[in-house]
């Protein structure tokens, strides 16, 4: 008998089982190859197991196998109509149950064995202790099988059986198993329960383990109890016995005369649709039918979705994986269930026999099904929505870093899965009679279809039409097949032709959407320029002594300023771990005492102060030898301090930051040595700082370019302080003048180089999504928990995988070429960026958009500084030679200046000798700035700290900030005043507000050369 039952189960389920085994092996192999498993999982937490893609896939396949086979066992008989035959076989029900369970169990174990072998082969399951893993996996699959059998006993068809089994299994996993295991652990704990002596006896442990395994038998007992309920009842009635026999004649002749007049009329449908006056009656009837057919499934699936949604609240459950899985499956169920009545009960023939309009039925089913699917999705999201509202936050910190980024297309991501699940389920539900087959096929097809868009969603810039047109094509394909389904001619030539045409249309829609992803970004000729730039222009790593020495100086300086070595936290002799590498502890830059920073800056602005503490501190700073290292570095052939090849878009500029104070400190030391009688020290310091700025700026990114210009301007700010106290020494003035000449010859606009350097960084970023996103998602914080890091790992791996898709890679290649161009050909440059969905990486967009403006503004300001400083030096040389300031600038040409001085806008500089006047600053509001930047961008610039535009240029005696707009500075008679005309050519004698930077207000520039000290004061 058992043999017959096993044979029957095998014959009936062999196709499903082989399909599960083959597809499962393929899936495991795919996941294993894309996500190489870890060889050792010891120490993994439960969350770690649940978030490992390979193990998760393997586990889900086991659950699916167990639940499907179990769910088909008994419900399949009812579904096929053979239950009456089966249950009237002349044996007790428990024998039928045992035979079926034996057959199903053998099948489940067979599939589990195949899947386990595949998983072990690709490394999803660790190779160590394989037998133990095999036992655990087998028990797990059998438990799922048992719960599937429970659902199967209670349900009327296989799909419902498997669904109920999944629900029961989930409930059991959430309640019975944890509680049971906890109870066992409590009982088996040393000193408690079975082990009161605390001796750690094996009896207690063995008993505990047996109890745990007994818990896995629970579903088998439940299903057996329900299935053999008639047997129990028979035994019970046998105890009490039937009612006593009574005697009555064999032949009756009885006429009752009963009529049916008194029977109550059957009530009509309790539900009445709201009035739809404009809809055709047939459509209203179709809507009513759909409502009746889907209301209960919608309620059940919403409840199921709600239960699944609760798990989204668990912090280390990856919402980015759970949400698609749950909502896609529920969508598939909704789509298949929409046709269950027509397919399962043969009601579809009604539509053919009555020649009713199937188009309206289809439309009603699509609309009703979509509404139901959306309701289920909302129910699934409800817990997290409520939590979010309760916290009054726009985002929830649990479950995902990716999904709750401000600009991530969350709604599109959330709707993609249920809608695709429904659409594909709707189509597949038409093709197969058995709902469980439809669900299995539709789940796989829908998952593949929806996942086609995942890379694009994660890449940003995906249009709505690209996502929804294929889904609409799937639904329209279903429309073509409704009549064939109703007429039971799905296998006919005409239906197959329609299906082929529809499938081709769907594939075409997919292909068009994906192709547009690539083609919407133009392939510019210069897309690969960065490769040549990287290979030829950037100094090679080997032999770049300047870079090495300057970096060494930066490390020494930052060590002193932060008070710790950057490698203190590292184990000796080991490479830093990623956590240490990205931790703040490793960052060589730390906070510097704010008072000393301000003090050194004040020296630049006002000259050396006789502060003994500052001198002592400076001696300590320079005792570390960093300045010598920097001097050695700048004396070498020009290098690149921050190499673009090492950077991502959100990398910290560690070496630059380490030298944040180097320029100021060098110049302050120069002024101090001047005060100590060594004016040449300042010239050396200025030369070093300018050399440093060249190494910072050379072939590097925008931030470095701006920082280099700031360093350079710092020199020009300090030069007047040096000149104020310089007695004679025309040689030093001439030497500095010469240094500026040399630097001026080098410091040409280099916007192209900066663009290419940024392009290199952009390319690096596309190729290192994991590092990029870990940095973004707080991976650098040591406080990040293990679970959060796992979550971050999952999401970064997902994005990295998405960015490796061929069409996304081609799109990225094109974006790399166009990303830094000012005239972006797309509708919205930011939306097209793959970083648009990832807040915090907006600086990429900002660089591409604002780089030319920022760079031009900084260049303008720096050039102005440089030219006016050269005028100062030329005027001083002239004054030393003639004991009087030059009457005009023209007298300086060509002996002191190579050409007539102009401001950065190209206008001649205004020069005059003061008659003893107050130099006043205009109190009026600056005029509007052409061209205006959007407020949002201005705000981002301010917040983002892209500085360099707003430096005020004060070379004259600087008023205090409170006097900025009402300052009156007395200029003695005979002193020259040099003023630019500015781009707006706005000038009044004594009242001037020239604009020197087109990108913003750059302050007022007045050059009042400091007078040479009288000869009597000369040392």
């Amino acid at each position, binding site marked *: 008998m058992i043999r017959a*039952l096993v044979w029957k189960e095998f014959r009936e389920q062999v196709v499903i089982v082989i399909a599960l085994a083959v597809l499962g092996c393929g899936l495991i192999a795919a996941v294993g190859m894309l996500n190489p498993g870890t060889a050792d999982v010891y120490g993994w937490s439960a969350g770690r197991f649940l978030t490992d893609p390979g193990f998760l896939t393997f586990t889900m396949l086991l659950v699916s196998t167990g639940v499907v086979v179990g769910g088909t066992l008994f419900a399949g008989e009812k579904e096929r109509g053979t239950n009456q035959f089966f249950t009237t076989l002349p044996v007790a029900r428990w024998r039928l149950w045992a035979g079926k369970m034996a057959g199903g169990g053998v099948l489940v174990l067979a599939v589990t064995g195949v899947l386990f072998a595949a998983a072990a082969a690709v490394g999803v399951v660790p190779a160590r202790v394989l037998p133990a893993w095999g036992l655990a996996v087998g028990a797990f699959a059998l438990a799922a099988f048992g719960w599937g059998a429970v659902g199967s006993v209670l349900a009327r068809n296989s799909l419902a059986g498997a669904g109920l089994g999944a629900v029961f299994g989930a409930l059991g996993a959430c309640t019975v198993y944890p509680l049971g295991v906890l109870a066992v652990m409590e009982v088996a704990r040393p000193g408690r329960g079975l082990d009161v002596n605390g001796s750690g006896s094996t009896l207690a442990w063995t008993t505990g383990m047996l109890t745990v395994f007994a818990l896995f038998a629970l579903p088998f007992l439940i299903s057996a109890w329900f299935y053999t309920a008639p047997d129990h009842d028979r035994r019970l009635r*046998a105890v009490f016995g039937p009612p006593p026999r009574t005697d009555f004649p064999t032949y009756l002749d*009885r006429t009752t005369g009963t009529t049916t007049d008194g029977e109550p009329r059957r009530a009509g449908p309790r539900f009445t649709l709201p009035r739809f006056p404009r809809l055709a009656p047939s459509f209203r009837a179709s809507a009513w039918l759909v409502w009746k057919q889907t209301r209960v499934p919608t309620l059940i699936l919403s409840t199921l979705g709600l239960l699944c949604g609760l798990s989204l609240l668990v912090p280390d459950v990856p919402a980015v994986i759970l949400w698609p899985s749950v909502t896609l499956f529920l969508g598939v169920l909704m789509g298949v269930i929409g046709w269950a009545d027509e397919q399962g009960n043969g009601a579809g023939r009604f539509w053919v026999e009555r020649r009713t309009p199937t188009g309206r039925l289809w439309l009603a089913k699509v609309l009703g099904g979509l509404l139901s699917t959306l309701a289920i999705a909302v129910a699934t999201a409800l817990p997290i929505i409520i939590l979010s509202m309760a916290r009054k936050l726009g985002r929830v910190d649990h479950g995902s870093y990716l999904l709750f980024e401000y600009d991530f297309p969350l709604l599109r991501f959330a709707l993609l899965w249920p809608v695709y699940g429904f659409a594909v389920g709707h189509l597949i539900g038409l093709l197969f009679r058995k709902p469980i087959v439809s669900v299995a096929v539709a789940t796989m097809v829908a998952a593949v279809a929806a996942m086609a868009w995942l890379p694009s969603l994660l890449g940003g810039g995906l249009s709505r039409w690209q996502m929804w047109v294929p889904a609409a094509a799937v639904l329209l394909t279903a429309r073509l097949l409704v009549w064939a389904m109703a007429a039971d001619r799905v296998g006919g030539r005409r239906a197959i032709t329609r299906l082929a045409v529809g499938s081709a249309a769907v594939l075409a829609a997919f292909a068009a959407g994906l192709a547009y992803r690539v083609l919407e970004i133009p392939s510019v000729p210069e897309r690969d320029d960065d490769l040549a730039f990287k290979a030829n222009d950037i100094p090679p790593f080997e032999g770049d002594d300047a870079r090495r020495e300057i970096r060494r100086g930066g490390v020494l300086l930052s060590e002193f300023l932060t008070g710790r070595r950057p490698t203190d936290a590292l184990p000796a002799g080991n490479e830093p771990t990623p956590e240490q590498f990205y931790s703040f502890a490793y960052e060589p830059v730390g906070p510097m005492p704010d008072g000393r920073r301000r003090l050194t800056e004040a020296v630049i602005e006002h000259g050396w102060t006789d502060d003994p503490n500052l001198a002592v501190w400076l001696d300590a700073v320079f005792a570390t030898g960093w300045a010598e290292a920097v001097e050695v570095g700048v004396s070498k052939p020009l290098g690149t301090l921050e190499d673009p090849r090492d950077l991502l878009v959100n990398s910290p500029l560690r070496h630059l930051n380490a030298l944040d104070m180097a320029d100021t400190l060098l110049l302050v030391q120069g002024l101090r040595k001047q005060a100590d009688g060594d004016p040449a020290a300042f010239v050396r310091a200025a030369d070093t700082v300018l050399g440093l700025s060249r190494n910072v700026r050379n072939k590097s990114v925008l931030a470095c370019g701006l920082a280099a210009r700031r360093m350079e301007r710092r020199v020009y700010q300090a030069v007047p302080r040096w000149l104020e106290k310089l007695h004679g020494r025309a040689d030093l003035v001439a030497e500095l003048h010469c240094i500026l000449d040399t630097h001026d010859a080098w410091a040409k606009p280099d916007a192209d180089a900066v663009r290419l350097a940024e392009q290199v960084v952009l390319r690096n970023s596309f190729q290192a999504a994991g590092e990029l996103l870990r940095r973004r998602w707080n991976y650098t914080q040591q406080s990040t928990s293990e679970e959060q890091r796992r979550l971050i790992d999952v999401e970064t791996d997902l994005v990295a995988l998405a960015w490796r898709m061929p069409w996304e890679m081609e799109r990225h290649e094109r974006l790399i070429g166009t990303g830094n161009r000012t005239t972006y050909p797309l509708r919205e440059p930011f939306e097209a960026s793959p970083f648009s969905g990832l807040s915090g990486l907006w600086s990429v967009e900002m660089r591409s958009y604002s780089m030319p403006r920022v760079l031009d503004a900084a260049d303008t300001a720096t050039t102005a500084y440089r030219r006016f400083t050269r005028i100062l030096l030329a005027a001083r040389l002239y004054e030393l030679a003639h004991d009087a300031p030059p009457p005009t600038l023209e007298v300086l040409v060509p002996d002191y200046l190579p050409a007539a001085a102009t401001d950065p806008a190209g206008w001649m500089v205004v020069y005059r000798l003061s008659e003893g006047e107050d130099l006043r600053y205009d109190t009026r509001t600056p005029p509007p700035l052409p061209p205006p930047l959007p407020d949002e961008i201005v705000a981002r610039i301010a917040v983002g700290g892209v500085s360099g535009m707003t430096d005020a240029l004060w070379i004259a005696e600087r008023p205090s900030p409170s006097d900025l707009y009402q300052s009156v500075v007395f200029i003695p008679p005979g002193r020259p005043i040099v003023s630019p005309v500015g781009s707006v050519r706005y000038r009044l004698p004594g009242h001037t507000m020239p604009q020197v930077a087109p990108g913003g207000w750059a302050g007022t520039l007045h050059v009042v050369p400091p007078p040479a000290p009288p000869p009597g004061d000369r040392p």
Partner: protein
Amino acid sequence: MSQLPADAIYIDKLVVRYRGKPAVDGLSLRVPRGSVFALLGDNGAGKSTTMKVLTGQLRPDGGRAELLGLDCWNSADTLRHKVGYVPDRPKLYDWMTVSEIGWFTGAFHQPGFRDRYLDWAGRLALDPNKKLKDFSKGGYARVSLALALAADPEVLLLDEPTSGLDLHTRREFLANLVDLAAEGRTILISSHSISELERFASHVGIVQHGKITHATTLDALRGRFRRVGFRYDGSPPDLRMVGTVCELSRVGRSAQFLLMDADADALAALQADPAVSDYEDGPVNLEDVYAALTRPADHVPAFGERNGVARPKPEAVR
């Protein structure tokens, strides 16, 4: 000491409810051994529910049901070896062949099942290697009958086994039943093909609204009814004295009516009436009887009315 019960089937005040509504409401029935008992009734009268109780598929909500002296519910497993059952719409495993379904079912029965099954399959002209899904309705029903008979049952329960079958298949099927009846098996059969049941049924039971209204031998039931026809001149004769008029039809001056429990003297007087000519008097078939007993009627027709049917007046239940 065991003694075979006289009745193969004994049902006493059987009650079965579906969702609180009675499908069988106090049905009582005795089926003598060796009889071919035709259970007649309209759709929904409770025939199939009674069959399911007898085969142990349904638990009675009240009363008792016995087969061969065993409780149908408590001893269902035992009885399934002794009882053959052919449902109204048999559904087997379509993917199996005739031979395979026999082998599979035989695994649950006592030895000899498969041999008898193959024997019956041969007698019923079933190809052993043909898959069930390739059979027509008639073939499918024959497979089901072969399975039921292969257990060598003492009692055969047939729940509308010929529904949906064409005329020839139906007659072939029923002919097989005649053979079985000849072997002395007890057969309880429900069917709508009353005229065909009439050929071999020995007993008849009529079920209405979950109750047995009539249960008797076929001959006794038919003997209570007569069909009378005549022509008349002048005013119509008074028929109230001849018996209960169950059915009346009149065309011009010709009249025909169905009488139950006719008064022989009154009929003789009617025949002797000079105004009556072309007098005919003959037996009726089971279908007419069934229709007369189960057809609802609003009133007893008077002869002055054109046509009408009447339901027999309520009689005291014995």
